[in-house]
């Protein structure tokens, strides 16, 4: 069974530029999550989708971050404009359903200069 796929794996941008990350969850997984992991900390939830609807985005900085999950499969997370403090690893996870085991992708390492 293929795992959660993410791209790109690494990205370096300058502040105020925009960037987008892509996630393809495990086939059949209805629930998709985006987490942000700052160096030295545990991941923190940004947004959760159930199929193509948003369950919770209370931790998403909506003035600069946006996310979508069209057709209930792939998802993209966008940052515009980026700030220095957005430097982190962005992790995508999926699960069969809500409250079930979450499986994580390899992450995208973002460095904002």
């Amino acid at each position, binding site marked *: 069974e293929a795992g959660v796929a993410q791209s790109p794996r690494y990205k370096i941008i300058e502040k105020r530029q925009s960037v987008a990350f892509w996630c393809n969850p495990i086939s059949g997984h209805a629930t998709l999550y985006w987490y942000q992991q700052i160096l030295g900390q*545990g991941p923190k939830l940004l947004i959760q989708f159930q199929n193509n609807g948003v369950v919770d985005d209370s931790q998403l900085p909506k003035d600069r971050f946006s996310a979508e999950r069209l057709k209930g499969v792939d998802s993209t997370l966008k940052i515009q404009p980026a700030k220095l403090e957005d430097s982190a690893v962005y992790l995508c996870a999926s699960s069969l359903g809500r409250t079930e085991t979450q499986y*994580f992708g390899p*992450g995208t390492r973002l460095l904002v200069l």
Partner: protein
Amino acid sequence: GIQVEQSPPDLILQEGANSTLRCNFSDSVNNLQWFHQNPWGQLINLFYIPSGTKQNGRLSATTVATERYSLLYISSSQTTDSGVYFCAVWDMYSGGGADGLTFGKGTHLIIQP
């Protein structure tokens, strides 16, 4: 929201040693997972264990939900066990309807040859 504390924060052991990692949480939980984050940043599922005991090879985990703690045991450590071990929990009452995991700060384990 729910608080997750992991101990010890750092652990250095010789190859072949056994170790116990602890996770305390501040409220009752409906989901608890243990992860290993390898040096490349990949979060690897170890256990989904909201209660009871599970074993997988040299690793085992026990969660005592009534006392709000979980333990991860690693026996006969190998250098490939090095990395950060995270405990993450979900509580249906404090999640605001979301199912995102709340992570501890992790235990950084180094296994020396």
